[in-house]
């Protein structure tokens, strides 16, 4: 019956398809599609599924390397780490659902990315969350923060995958559009990677997981209202997650994947059954025959349209060899999952789905999957850049003392400790977390080897606003630097590109520049981009978010005992700085907080310098010359030093002397890149100096850790002298005080 509704221009528009796109469908089919088919086209040709705006740009990224087993194009990327093992990882956004319903939106985001990883045959062993919220004073921010964090916690904790790190920024540009990007990493045998492939005529298509309900059926509010006269209330379009079922699904999938008769598998993500089944068949160049009546259903009276497009969570599609259906069913039933054979692989490249015995979908698979009109979106350099490009420092007063400034920076929720958040996450389960959250990067041991993995995620949106090319480069550089500070070599990158409306040429320019920056720096560093995700249309009422190309980096260390953390370890250790400081106040937290503006140029990033600093740092760690390493980021040198004071085994003060010809605020609070604060015992100093010199990296000894004060003298004058525990209290508790307040 859904198949018999005539298609009007209104229905086409409701489905977000342009008249040109509809004409193309008619031409491809040589007839009008029915409503179910139209729904499928609408979903498959959406930006989300087809990457029609972004694909030409993404093609320019470096995706290959000797360790790459699987680059972009599958559910997640795969990188070889030796010993017959591989890491499988990806980052994905769940921005819009999280804004509508922060708890469920974030939770289902976690569920989705985990499925992307275990679909490939990997056991998920770590999650990271990269979050962007609006101004802390905005009326919705606290509610969104608490809801999102609880959603991630409820889901990740229940499934038993530790959330070991992440990052959080607050900026008014996210007031109407928060970002929730979640990263998952899994571990697999390098020769047991599963792909989303439906090959082998006659092989069975198996549905497994939760039953299908009417969750998240988009684009068709009018159409679906028509066929569902029993609707008493408007159907919610948010999906609700069930982490318990996900846990069962995970264990069942890993169990069945030990079998040789599993041909292919894909999770049902966006556009549910449609995208998973079409994509699997397309990759194999096969056809499919489905019996929709066999799909396990949660509600009575669901029609073909709903079954094809529902986004109910915790569902997977398997293709298993003919003859092994019963074994497969037995394994899934052991785990109490709903499971059914819903179709077979055919060889004619056609997708046929039957409802009540009647064929309601007859579509050429390749045309649906690859036939979306490619958009060559126009780009134009944004007008605002001319306005904000300059920053005249001469008119800005330099504070006479820095104590108050430092306190305010430490209290800023973007800089303050994120303990309030990561304490709500189980970050220890599975006993792999060697370095818990709170250092530059999380470090996880690789079970049954001496190796460890290091994970970090980063992106400063203000830099991206001032220059998306450099902003993206800095995001890569900083994430790599974080991983390096923990003692690991970066081996792979995944990214989540969060931007505004691509139909706006200025946004498209930002996108193009960011991708170029990402590609250029990854090429220079020789790190492959193995997976990623694009989230466009992040704007409300024409106000776009700042360009936010979130970058997650995976690092590898051969000897896990050589890992390093950011805190000063004991009184008497000397403190030093690798790298040099420039007058980089553009885009800084200091500029925002004290001058309430965002202008100028983002910090300078010289890839060669960055590489030299990172290599030197790794060298120093591996020669056991340094006891801590911490990169300088938001809040600059003073904040980095203070954080190292707070995060050792016991809080320690520091006595520091700086000499410089530059403005004190730029020196201490500017956000120059390629700098790392280190600490070491006195006797290591000569070796460090000589290695730094050899590497061509500026190095300065700044002072000594210890005492109860955090003191900085500049050119002989006391600039900061504060009680370390008072500073620590501010840094440690600001975010929890904020999150725990109810109103006002």
């Amino acid at each position: 019956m859904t198949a018999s509704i005539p298609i009007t221009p209104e229905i086409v528009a409701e489905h977000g398809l342009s008249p040109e796109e509809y004409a193309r469908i008619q031409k491809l089919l040589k007839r009008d599609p029915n409503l179910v088919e139209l729904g499928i086209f609408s979903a498959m040709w959406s930006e989300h599924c087809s990457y029609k705006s972004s694909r030409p740009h993404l093609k320019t990224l470096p995706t290959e390397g000797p360790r790459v087993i699987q680059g972009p194009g599958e559910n997640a990327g795969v990188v070889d780490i030796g010993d017959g093992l591989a890491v499988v990882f990806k980052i994905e956004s769940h921005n819009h659902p999280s804004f509508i319903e922060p708890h469920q939106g974030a939770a289902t985001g976690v569920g989705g990315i985990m499925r992307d990883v275990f679909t490939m045959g990997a056991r998920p062993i770590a999650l990271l969350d990269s979050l962007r919220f609006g101004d802390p004073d905005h009326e919705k921010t606290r509610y969104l923060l608490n809801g999102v964090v609880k959603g991630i916690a409820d889901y990740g904790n229940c499934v038993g995958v530790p959330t070991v790190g992440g990052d959080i920024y607050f900026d008014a540009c996210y007031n109407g559009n928060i970002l929730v990007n979640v990263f998952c990493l899994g571990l697999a045998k390098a020769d047991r990677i599963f792909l989303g492939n439906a090959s082998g005529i006659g092989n069975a298509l198996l549905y497994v997981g939760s039953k299908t309900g009417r969750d998240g059926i988009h684009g068709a509010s009018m159409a679906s209202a028509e066929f569902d006269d029993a609707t008493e209330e408007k159907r919610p379009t948010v999906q609700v997650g069930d982490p318990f079922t996900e846990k069962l699904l995970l264990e069942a999938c890993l169990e069945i994947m030990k079998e040789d008769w599993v041909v292919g598998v894909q999770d049902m993500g966006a556009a549910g059954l449609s995208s998973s089944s079409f994509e699997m068949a397309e990759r194999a160049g096969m056809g499919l025959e489905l019996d929709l009546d066999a799909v396990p259903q949660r509600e009575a009276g669901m029609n073909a349209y709903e079954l094809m497009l529902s986004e109910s969570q915790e569902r997977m599609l398997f293709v298993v060899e003919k003859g092994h259906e019963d074994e497969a069913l037995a394994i899934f039933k052991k785990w109490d999952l709903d499971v059914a054979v819903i179709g077979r692989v055919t060889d004619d490249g056609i997708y046929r789905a039957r409802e009540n015995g009647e064929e309601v979908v007859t579509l050429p698979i390749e045309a649906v999957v690859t036939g979306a009109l490619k958009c060559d979106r126009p780009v134009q350099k944004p007008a605002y850049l001319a306005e904000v490009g300059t920053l005249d420092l001469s008119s800005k007063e330099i504070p006479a003392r820095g104590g108050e400034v430092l306190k305010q920076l430490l209290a800023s929720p973007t800089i303050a400790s994120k303990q309030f958040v990561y304490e709500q996450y189980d970050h220890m389960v599975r006993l792999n977390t060697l370095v818990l959250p709170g250092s530059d990067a999380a470090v996880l041991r690789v079970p049954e080897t001496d190796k460890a993995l290091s994970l970090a995620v980063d992106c400063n949106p203000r830099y991206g606003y001032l220059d998306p090319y450099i902003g993206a480069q800095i995001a890569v550089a900083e994430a790599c630097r974080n991983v390096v500070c923990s003692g690991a070599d970066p081996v792979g990158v995944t990214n989540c590109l969060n931007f505004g409306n691509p139909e706006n040429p200025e946004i498209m320019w930002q996108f193009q520049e960011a991708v170029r920056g990402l590609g250029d720096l990854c090429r220079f560093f020789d790190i492959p981009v193995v997976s990623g995700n694009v989230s466009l249309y992040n704007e409300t009422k024409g106000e776009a978010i700042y360009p936010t190309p979130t970058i997650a980096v995976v690092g590898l260390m051969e000897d896990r005992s050589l890992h390093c953390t950011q805190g000063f370890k004991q009184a008497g250790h000397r403190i030093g700085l690798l790298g040099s400081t420039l007058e980089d106040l553009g885009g800084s937290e200091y500029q925002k907080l004290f001058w309430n503006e965002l202008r100028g140029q983002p910090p300078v990033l010289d890839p060669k310098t960055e590489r030299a600093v990172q290599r030197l740092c790794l060298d120093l760690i591996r020669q056991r010359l340094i006891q801590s390493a911490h990169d300088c980021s938001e809040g600059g040198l003073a904040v980095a030093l203070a954080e190292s004071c707070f995060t050792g085994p016991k809080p320690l003060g520091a006595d520091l002397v700086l000499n410089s010809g530059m403005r004190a605020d730029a020196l201490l609070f500017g956000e120059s890149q390629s700098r790392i604060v280190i600490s070491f015992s006195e006797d290591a100093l000569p070796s460090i100096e000589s290695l730094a010199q050899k590497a061509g990296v500026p190095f300065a000894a700044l002072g000594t850790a210890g005492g109860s004060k955090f003191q900085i003298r500049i050119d002989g004058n006391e600039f900061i002298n504060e009680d370390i525990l008072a500073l620590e209290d501010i840094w440690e508790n600001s975010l929890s005080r904020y999150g725990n307040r109810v109103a006002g």
Partner: protein
Amino acid sequence: MLAKIHVTLKNGVLDSQGKAVHQALNDLGYAEVEDVRLGKYMEVALSGISEQEAQTRVTEMCEKLLANTVIESYRFSLEPAE
């Protein structure tokens, strides 16, 4: 005055708790159980306002805090305090 508030999941929203309890009851031998839905029940004691005011205020509380209106519906009754 006492507001007795029921918050339940909207139709069509997955009730994973209800599903688990349903299964558990069946496993315990209660084959007669056909469906289980779980919701919240709250009693909010109010003082110093009229019933009419209370109507508006409690509605507001539900909308703002007590129910997640994206996926939940609520209903309440007002009774004199016991």
